Every structure is written in structure tokens, then in C-alpha cells.
């Protein structure tokens, strides 16, 4: 065997080098590791998000047709690097970066006893919305509204609505994931249906969302990966 160590090491040397090595090693590795892994620490350890935890306006419910989804684009501000809030305040007129998420909204569709599609559009919406809404109206809208992320549950490409003779379906252009108007899984590679945004409807007859997905069950809201 090749002899790398010429002088035998004593126990004291070993411990001394071990302790010194640990201290120096920590001094050399922790700062750069923390520097590079900063965002991972912020998100996973400190539970922070780059998008402020606010409600963002999507659009009016009155514009959503009865049998088809309508897409709105929401601009979420992104607090990252030169687009971080404080940097923008301190700096010159640097505009903040945004992440534009397409939000598909539609009225819930159910299949009736005879196989016919029932679109659960509230009657007061169909006859023209008159804000402000009452609490009952808000509840009715909230119960019957789909607020879906355009990001495919497979690998995140933006899905689009394809019109067909008997309605239509959401189709992902990347790998052919298909969903129904409620965002339910129909076919293709996605492991689940489309993600729903955490949303609320306010008196002004507008939809507001947070930058998080309501994945149901006891898991609570989930930060969207990627988008």
C-alpha cells in the first residue's frame, strides 16, 4: 500500500487536528453554504414566501360565462434580489418584478340524473351582477365557483381550454394532460386534478386569491412550486 503518512500520528495530535479542523472547516463552509442556500432556509426553515401573503384581485364574477371558463391573469409581486421590497424602496425607480399567473375561473358543472350537464351559475349572476353583494350571494358564488391554477399538475405547463362540440376540456400543451371544466382529472400523465387557488369573493363582486393552492384535506394550503 502506498504510504501517505510518514510520521505516525499521536492521539493528542489526532484530537488537536480534529478539533481545529472542525472549527476551521465550519468557518470555511458555513458562510458560503448559507449564502447560496439562503432561499431554501428562508422558505423551508423560516417559512417565508417571495410573494407577500396578501389577497390579489383576479377579476369580476359577472364576466364568467355559464358554460365556459374564463381566464384572468394575476400579477403577483415577487420579492427576490433586486426586486425585493426594501431594495425597491431604497433604490431608484426600479420596477418590481412580478410573476404572472393565469387563473381559470368557471362555474361548477355537475352531471344530472339523466346525464345532462348542469352549470351551477347563480341566477343573480346570470341576470347581471349588482354590487354590493349580500353575504348569501357571496356564499352561493363561493360554493359554485372554480378558481383554478393554469399550471398543469404534471410538470407545470400552462393549460388551455379546448372547445369541443359538447363543451370542452383543459389540455396541457406539453404532455397532453386533460382536465374537465371543474379541473378534475380526465386523462394523461398528471397525478391529480388541477390545483385550486385559495380564493374569496367580496362584496364588490370580484374574486381575490392568495398565492397558494388549496389542496383540501388536512394538509392545509400549499405554496405553489415553480410558478
Amino acid at each position, binding site marked *: 500500500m502506498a504510504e501517505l503518512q510518514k510520521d505516525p500520528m499521536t492521539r493528542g495530535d489526532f484530537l488537536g487536528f480534529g478539533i481545529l479542523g472542525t472549527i476551521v472547516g465550519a468557518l470555511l463552509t458555513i458562510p458560503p453554504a448559507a449564502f447560496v442556500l439562503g*432561499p431554501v432556509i428562508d422558505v*423551508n426553515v423560516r417559512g417565508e414566501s417571495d410573494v407577500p401573503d396578501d389577497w390579489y384581485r383576479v377579476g369580476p364574477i359577472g364576466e364568467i360565462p355559464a358554460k365556459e371558463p374564463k381566464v384572468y391573469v394575476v400579477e403577483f409581486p415577487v*420579492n427576490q434580489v433586486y*426586486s425585493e421590497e426594501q431594495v425597491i424602496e431604497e433604490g431608484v425607480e426600479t420596477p418590481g*418584478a412580478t410573476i404572472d399567473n393565469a387563473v381559470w375561473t368557471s362555474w361548477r358543472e355537475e352531471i344530472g340524473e339523466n346525464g345532462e350537464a348542469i352549470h351551477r351559475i347563480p341566477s343573480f349572476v346570470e341576470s347581471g351582477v349588482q354590487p354590493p353583494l349580500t353575504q348569501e350571494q357571496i356564499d352561493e358564488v363561493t360554493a359554485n365557483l372554480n378558481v383554478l391554477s393554469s399550471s398543469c399538475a404534471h410538470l407545470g405547463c400552462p393549460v388551455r381550454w379546448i372547445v369541443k362540440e359538447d363543451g370542452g376540456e383543459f389540455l396541457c400543451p406539453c404532455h397532453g394532460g386533460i382536465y374537465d371544466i371543474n379541473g378534475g382529472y380526465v386523462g394523461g400523465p398528471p397525478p391529480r386534478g388541477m390545483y385550486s387557488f385559495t380564493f374569496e369573493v367580496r362584496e364588490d363582486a370580484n374574486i381575490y386569491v392568495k*398565492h397558494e393552492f388549496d389542496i383540501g384535506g388536512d394538509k392545509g394550503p400549499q405554496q405553489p412550486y415553480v410558478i
Partner: protein
Amino acid sequence: MGAISKARSQAADAGKFVADWLEHRAGIVTMMEHFLYEPVPKRGAWIYTLGSATLFLITLQFLTGILLLFYYVPSTDHAWNSIYYIMNEAYFGTLIRGIHYWSANFLLAVIGLHMAQVFFSGGYKAPRELNWVVGVVLLLLVVIIAFTGYALRWDQDGVWATVVGMKIGSYSPFVGAYTIQFLMGGDTIGPATVSRFFAIHVWLLPAALAPFIGIHLYLLRRHGVFGDEMEYRERLAKLQERQRLEEYEQYEDDGEPYVGRRDRADRD
């Protein structure tokens, strides 16, 4: 003797002087001999150029990449615009970026062929296993460099391909979420994403790639191209023996004692 042939012999002398001077101080001629001349099996000799083709394409990547850096701006606001400038305003911008783009594409194809050649000829076998491992590391580095380069375009193609790639990463067991947050620089794609992909594409991975290329070439030279021992070892040994004898005879004729090539160079 004409003036031309005189100048020619003077130039040859000067060249010899420079080569000798460098050889004495840096051993450069020996090194060049060592690095440049490699016995290659006669059968399928062209197949053995695939490794050099890979090296050539990587060199092209480095050169054109450095040139692109003169105009590229890694920010969400300016990345696309700066590439638009390269493509429409900068002199030969289309050419430089085109070479960067196409040689990146060809690089992956040539690496695949190179690997196939090594695999099917059994070139990964002992004592060359380590070079295969180094080669796989190089392949992974190149793949990640190609992936991170796509995002830097910051157009629809680049961004969505990156989203898909990162989503694939997010399905990794245990570290999926961490990986994706590390790459995005947060929990959403944004300014930090461009900066990180830029740092990884331009600095981190090329810096990692370069020494591994060195190790790859060193190990290649150490063990030789696979197959040369079958056809060449014996023949080379015979050739060297014959050259040695011829030299020895020549010096015997001159009446000088034989002292070997290197010692003679020192004495001159």
C-alpha cells in the same frame, strides 16, 4: 547557395534554438510529444476522433460563451432584450449565438456517440474504469449546463422548459422541494432564478468542468486508447528497440561514446 535557402536554414536554426530553449526550461517538447502522439488502433481509427470532437465543441462553447457575456445581462428586465440586441444589432451576433446554440446541441449528440464508442468497444474496462466514471461526471455537468443555459434566454420556450425541468426535479424523493427552491432562489420563479441559473451556467459548472476535462485527458494518456495494446504495444516496442539500436550504431561509427538523447541535448 541561394539567399532563400540560406534564410530557410537560418529560420530552421532559430526554430531549433527556441524549441531547445523551451525544452530545457519547461520540458515543452517532451510534454508535447507525450500529449500529442497517441497510438490509435488502425481499425476504426475515425471513431477515435469522437473524444477530440467533444473537446473541440466544449472549447467552442467556452469561446462563444465568453463572447456572449460581452452583451448578455442576467436580469428579468433585460435578459431577453440583451439577447434581442445580440441577435439583431451586434456584429455577427447571430453567428456567435448560433455557434453557441448549435454546438451545444451537437455536443450532447457527440458525447452520446463518444460514450457509445467507449461502451461498445469495451473501453470502460480495467484499468480505465475511473476514466469512464470521470466521463459520466462530465456528461452530467454538460447536461446541467445545457439545462441552465436554456433558462437564460428568458423567452417563453426557455422559461417553460425550465419550469418543466425544475418540476421534474421536484419529484425527487426527500430533496425535491429543496432542490427546486435552491434553483429558483425562493418559492417562485423570478429575478433570483435568472441570477442563479446565470451563476451556475457561467461560473460554477464550467469551473467544475475544466479540471474534470484535465483529469479525463490525463487518465486517457496514462492508459492509452483502448485497443492500442492489442495492435500496437508489441509493434511499438519493436520500433523503439530498432531506433535505439540504429542510434547506437550511428554513434559508434562517429567514434563518440553513446550517452542517450537527452544528455546529448544538454551538452549541446
